[in-house]
């Protein structure tokens, strides 16, 4: 039925009304569902605080792992005694790397990527050097932080 002065029939009006209502319902439900199934992701830590004694005394030319959030961090003492902290995750496909003291290089077994002592990618597929962290020592604490992050410990 269509009134003389109306632009649409009653059927079109009702269909649009129900259609719009259904579309709004579907959109709302989909939004809620999508929000639910995509988790809120945390972020990587800016710094971690470790015990100085556990790390500084490792032998030269070796590494000791630490937890960088959920990822692998490596505390590294070079042949010449200097120390370095870096993220032990290959920049290619995120596999954990390992240190090979015999050749003094870092190695990723997944796709045969190599990094030199300073973390530079030298062979294989890795596109970028390893991420190097800043090391600071405060009292008996070893603070490993992202480059450029200032860490102020609360005064005890």
């Amino acid at each position, binding site marked *: 039925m269509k009134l003389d002065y109306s632009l649409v029939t009653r059927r079109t009006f009702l269909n649009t009304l129900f259609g719009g209502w259904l579309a709004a319902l579907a959109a709302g439900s989909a939004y809620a569902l999508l929000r639910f*199934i*995509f*988790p809120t*992701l*945390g*972020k*990587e830590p800016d710094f971690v605080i470790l015990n100085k004694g556990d790390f500084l005394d490792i032998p030269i030319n070796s590494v000791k*792992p630490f*937890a960088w*959030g*959920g*990822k*692998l961090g490596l505390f590294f003492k070079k042949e010449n005694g200097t120390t370095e902290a870096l993220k*032990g995750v*290959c920049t*290619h*496909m*995120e*596999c*954990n*790397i*390992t240190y090979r003291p015999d050749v003094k290089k870092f190695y*990723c*077994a*997944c*796709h045969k990527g190599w990094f030199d002592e300073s973390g530079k*990618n030298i062979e*294989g*597929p*890795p*596109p*970028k050097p390893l991420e190097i962290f800043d090391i600071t020592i405060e009292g008996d604490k070893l603070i490993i932080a992202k480059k450029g992050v200032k860490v102020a410990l609360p005064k005890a």
Partner: protein
Amino acid sequence: MRCRRLKDWVGERYDIEGLRGFIRNKYVPSHRLDVWYFAGGLTLFLFIFQFITGMALALYYVPQAEHAHKSIIDIVTKLNMGWLFRSLHHWGGQLAIAVLFVHVFSTLLLKAYRKPRELLWVTGFVMLIISIFFGLSGYFLLWDERAFAAVRVATGGAGNLPLIGGFVKGFLRGDLDVTGETLTRFYAFHVAILPLVTVAVTGLHVVLVQLHGMSVPLSQQNRQRKPEPFFPNLFYKDLIVWLICLGVVVTLAALFPPQIGVKADPLAPAPENIKPEWYFLFLFQTLKLFPGEIAGLNGETIAIIIISAAIAFFFLIPFFDRRSAAERQSRLFTWIGIFYLVYFTVMTVIGFLT
């Protein structure tokens, strides 16, 4: 006598004669290449087999990072027949994917995807993707260090997709990294989400086969033998093939039980010489072809874009192949099909040998 009464009971309520008539009138074309028809039914059989062995394993598996690895060892060492069921599910899965690839490539090369069967190709392709995801998620449930590294690489690779990469990665992992959250997610995919989608899509696929009948390759259309009745001839032939396959699976399961590695440790280095499952090797080898950086762009991203484009083209072949749709010989698409098959085979073999 009771059987007679049961028959009447059903017959008074449902159209049994109609169903009988349908089966009696179902004929299958017969020609030189009809042996490839068995691949589809065999895939179906292996899927049913996976459903049954999987349900059995689900009664004992503990989907939690602390206990998952141990629960599998318990299934294999402490439960009655546990070793057999784990092994059957492993080999059933391997064969299901192998047979599925045979089914896909025979469909491709015989152009069975051509009009009017495009939707069969589409549903089949969806099942192929689902099966591979079944494989990846099932493999991860072992929660050993290989599975851990494999899923890190696979989900990390998905993260290299332009625009949607970050979303896909977060959705698959359920966390910033591969963690216990990922295990929960993959378990849900493996035992709830993927099986339900499989039932729906495979159901549609089988219904469409009944609707269209089997496709006769263009080259065989004028050389067909007399069509064979489905029941009983092909029904029994199918059963023979299924039974042989069951024998193969049980033999493989008994002689070559799958291993399980050391429990996954997010802070341990990736294990030496890891290789993905064989059906990922062609992707793995393709990724190796690309350097880390191409003209200042991330080589991974370029590799992933090219691979995605090749897979998308594969998916859309029935819609590009206009000649086959018009029932004419389509040499170009024969060569394209051969290219895909050769590339897949060669890369898989190279990946296997190196």
